[in-house]
């Protein structure tokens, strides 16, 4: 058993304190990082509830329940931000990525507490893959929402569609890392490869004068 609330307090307090002395976009970024950590904490409770409700094993929960709960929970603060504060749509990707970074950081901290920090290569792989996965989902949701919220009648279908895409993407990752041997290796590699491709595309596409509408 690990005391995730204690870990949360320990990680979130320094971030919360620094908010008092910074402003502008950095402050928003930091707030969303803390929100991501809070969402990770709450997701653990929701996952445990559904695991008990369905009588599911840990493996089944990781593959079938966790992706749904985590992605739904990650979307809620963003929707709150959009609907209550009505920010400029160009600020949404940054907020979504900050939320994903906070979530991944807290998840990794809990993982370290539970499993130890002896195996550097394994932790490097996990840090890269889990971090890349959450950031990819953040990028998809952030850029997706910034488009669909420009058109009122697209907002609902687009938001739920993006949520579904993130859920299945996350579930495929969890499914692969739950397997053995080559499946697990593929699971650890594919988010990192995708984020490397995305980064290469971000650098290359403007140079090739290729822009999305």
């Amino acid at each position, binding site marked *: 058993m690990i005391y995730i609330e204690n870990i949360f307090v320990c990680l979130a307090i320094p971030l919360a304190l620094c908010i008092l002395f910074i402003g502008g976009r950095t402050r928003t970024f930091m707030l969303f990082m803390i929100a991501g950590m809070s969402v990770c904490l709450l997701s653990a409770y929701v996952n445990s509830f559904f695991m008990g409700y369905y009588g599911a094993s840990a493996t089944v929960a990781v593959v079938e329940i966790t992706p749904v709960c985590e992605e739904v929970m990650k979307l809620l603060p963003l929707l709150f931000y959009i609907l209550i504060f009505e920010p400029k749509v160009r600020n949404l990707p940054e907020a979504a990525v900050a939320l994903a970074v906070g979530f991944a950081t807290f998840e990794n901290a809990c993982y370290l507490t539970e499993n130890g920090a002896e195996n550097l290569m394994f932790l490097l792989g996990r840090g890269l893959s889990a971090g890349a996965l959450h950031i990819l989902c953040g990028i998809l949701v952030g850029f997706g929402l910034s488009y669909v919220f420009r058109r009122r009648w697209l907002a609902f279908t687009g938001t739920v*569609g993006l949520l579904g895409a993130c859920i299945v*993407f996350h579930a*495929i990752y969890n499914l692969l890392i739950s*397997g053995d041997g080559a499946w697990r290796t593929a699971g650890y590699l594919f988010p990192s490869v995708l984020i490397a491709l995305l980064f290469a595309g971000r650098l290359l596409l403007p140079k090739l004068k290729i822009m999305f509408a």
Partner: protein
Amino acid sequence: MNFELIDNCFQIAVLLCAALAAIAAEIRHKDRRFLILALFYICVSMGTLYWVLHIFIFGDVPQVFYVAEFSWLAAYLFLLSFQMVRTDRAGPLFSLPALACALLAAAVVLAFRIFGPSYVVSAAFAGVVFAIVYLAVWRLRRRGGGGLIDCWLLLCVGLQMLLYVVSVFMQDFTRFNLYFAVDIALTFSFAALLPLALREVAGK
């Protein structure tokens, strides 16, 4: 290897190629419809990929939650978004024949609990199908039977419903049968949406 896996792998390959082609079309034509279509293809293929991987890794289909169904539902939501982007609201949106067709489609979805057995997921799919069919029939009537792509969308929705209806009567999914014939037709009909969208954009 049983035919279910072959059919699913074929669907994943075809739709991922269609997604790449849709992204290329988006870059070339700078029209958001292609990006939405690409997301539709990606969601269908990722849902099927999850299903296939679950069979490969655990030797069984998912038992507790509806991850693949969420993905397919998301795909149909993108298809609905595609319809909404194509629809300009000039004139009244109400049409009795469109409403009748949409209600019939939603009733079939609920009767066969498509994307079920959860009532919630099935009802959500019924709502999405209702909206897609309504907009397609409304557009067809308004334009005097013009848009081929609207007929094609109705065909896609019809094949999706037929797939589930046929699956009720099938017992053996290891060999080729009517179920797989419908599924392959559905895969090709999804893929054909892209050339039809290209034709529509070119004809603008």
